[in-house]
């Protein structure tokens, strides 16, 4: 039944994994292109975007693929990021699976709409291919939008579920996952990527085609959707407005309850060489990819270095980081910014061990050796 000549590989992959890879088409593409293909394949109903470097390939790929002729997915270039996010709001309000993508300055413009999406509890997907800021900044990659993503960005007490892909494969995988989480919790989800993951080409296995939701499925999953009021049900109103402060407080308590549930159920992370680690790197997205190499180099120098990669930036993997704080001598939060996630690492560690930050700013990317150097410096300072 099964003949497989690559015995070498067999020792590395489980049977199911090999079968999966053999049956599926492997493609080479940019992270941004993977987002577009994954959107079409996961039953997305509509994409609304506006060009900005380094994410324009998302809209370009969709325009080239013409999914409106195949799956029926709507693709529209809006007049601005503001309009695009409000189109997402409009579409999500009718129970449709809709998304947008942009890069940092454009994401700033979308913050109004994101706050409204959170306030109206609308499932939706927003992709941020981060570039260096502040202001118009640079088109080079950065992770300086961490605070904006996990601490708010828009006004009011709300949370986004934030997924941080570290490969083109994860760019593809997180589109479907993002929508699933969005509809599970009626909450906007953000894929926080950057110019490296968006622009680099890697092999990727695209997800299988999933049909778009039928009207029956929408009615079942989204009984709140504004689709036209049939006789016998109350009218559905999509709004974040509640002038009665006591009711608005109740709404906020409902949101907070949901956020606690998400924190309980949806924390995702990856541990690389953490088992015996004396020093731990904490890094997400493209930084984590670079840190993987740093771990390899450090270990060849005899330093027991591990890497913990948060996959969800919110909810943040605080519990596991706190557990490692009992085991390791120090942690280094490695980010392409001036020190943002390090605050959450310190909160998780709660003073148990030293936590430092290493970063490069404004579009400059660190090398694996630079990070090993930072670890060695931290060791010597003990």
């Amino acid at each position, binding site marked *: 039944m099964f003949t497989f000549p690559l015995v070498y590989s067999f020792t590395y992959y489980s049977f199911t994994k090999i079968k999966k890879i053999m049956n599926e088409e492997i493609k080479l593409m940019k992270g941004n292109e993977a987002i577009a293909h994954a959107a079409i394949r996961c039953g997305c109903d509509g994409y609304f975007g506006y060009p900005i470097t380094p994410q324009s390939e998302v809209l370009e790929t969709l325009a080239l693929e013409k999914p409106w002729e195949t799956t029926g997915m709507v693709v529209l270039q809006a*007049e601005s990021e503001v309009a695009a996010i409000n189109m997402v*709001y409009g579409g999500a309000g*009718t129970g449709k699976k809709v998304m947008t993508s942009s890069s940092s300055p454009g994401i700033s413009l979308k913050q109004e709409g994101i706050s409204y999406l959170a306030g*109206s509890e609308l499932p939706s997907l927003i992709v941020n291919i981060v570039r260096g800021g502040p202001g118009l900044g640079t088109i080079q990659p950065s992770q300086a939008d961490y605070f904006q993503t996990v601490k708010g960005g828009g006004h009011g007490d709300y949370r986004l579920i934030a997924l941080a892909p570290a490969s083109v494969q994860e760019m593809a995988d997180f589109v479907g996952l993002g929508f699933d989480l969005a509809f599970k919790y009626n909450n906007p989800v953000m894929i926080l990527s950057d110019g490296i993951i968006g622009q680099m080409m890697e092999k990727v296995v695209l997800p299988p085609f999933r049909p778009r939701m039928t009207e029956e499925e929408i009615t079942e999953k989204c009984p709140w959707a504004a689709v036209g009021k049939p006789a016998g049900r109350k009218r559905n*109103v999509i709004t*974040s407005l509640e002038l009665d402060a006591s009711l608005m407080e109740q709404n906020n308590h409902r949101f907070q309850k949901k956020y606690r549930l998400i924190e309980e159920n949806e924390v995702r992370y990856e541990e690389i060489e953490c088992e015996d680690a004396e020093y731990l790197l904490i890094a997400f997205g493209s930084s984590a990819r670079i840190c993987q190499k740093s771990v390899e180099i450090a270990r060849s120098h005899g330093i027991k270095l591990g890497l913990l990669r948060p996959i969800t930036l919110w909810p943040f993997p605080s519990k596991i980081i706190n557990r490692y704080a009992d085991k390791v001598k120090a942690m280094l939060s490695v980010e392409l910014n001036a020190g943002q996630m390090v605050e959450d690492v310190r909160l998780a560690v709660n003073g148990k061990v030293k936590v430092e930050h290493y970063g490069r700013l404004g579009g400059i990317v660190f090398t694996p050796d630079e990070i090993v150097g930072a670890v060695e410096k931290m060791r010597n300072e003990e």
Partner: protein
Amino acid sequence: MKNEEVRMTTKDIIKPENLVYQKPEIMNDVPMHYCPGCSHGVVHKLVAEVIEEMGMQDKTVGIAPVGCAVFAYNYLDIDWEEAAHGRAPALATAVKRLRPDRLVFTYQGDGDLAAIGTAETVHACNRGESIAIIFINNGIYGMTGGQMAPTTLEGMKTATCPYGRDVKLNGYPLKITNILKELEGTRYITRQSVHTAAAVRKAKKAIRKAFENSMEDKGTSVVEIVSTCASGWKLDPVQANEWMEKNMFPAYPLGDLKNVE
């Protein structure tokens, strides 16, 4: 003829053959927050009547604005989405594109449509989205307490131009529908009012046409209703109607601006 022979009881009066007018069923039986003399109530009723007459209650999605009509969703028994300030045409664009068989309309004031939402308005119209836009133009921000609107007349006093609108300082009253009629995506652009019974009938016909255009995928229709804001204008309802005829109509003359058959 004796008096008792002609006296009708309430029972006699509410017989179906005596009924000449009734509230559309889509209008919810709740107190409105609109001020006495405000045009919103009449326009709401017209929208409700048209939806009901077209039999579209189960196929209509209304987009409410930010401004006095923010609570439109309390008054009409249809599904609604409440937009951020000025963004109603963007929401409507997505709803209509994703659900082309639905009747999609926005209901917006002058600040929402012609100031903060100018880009969304112009581009939705330019794309020829098959949506209907109901545009209430009363030359003032009512909800926030009577500040200057893009459509405020030259010399007109508001809370933020207390000495009258000075065009050197604040620019000119924006005749937005005149701009929209030039866009190839628009099908029907009209300017109406609801200050007399005859005007109400004409406005209703205009709304009906706009809604039919949405259903027949004919491009964007805009029904501007030159309206009163008695409270904002600091006039009583009768004076407000008179003031509107004398001052608003010359700047915003009524009639069809564009009607592509």
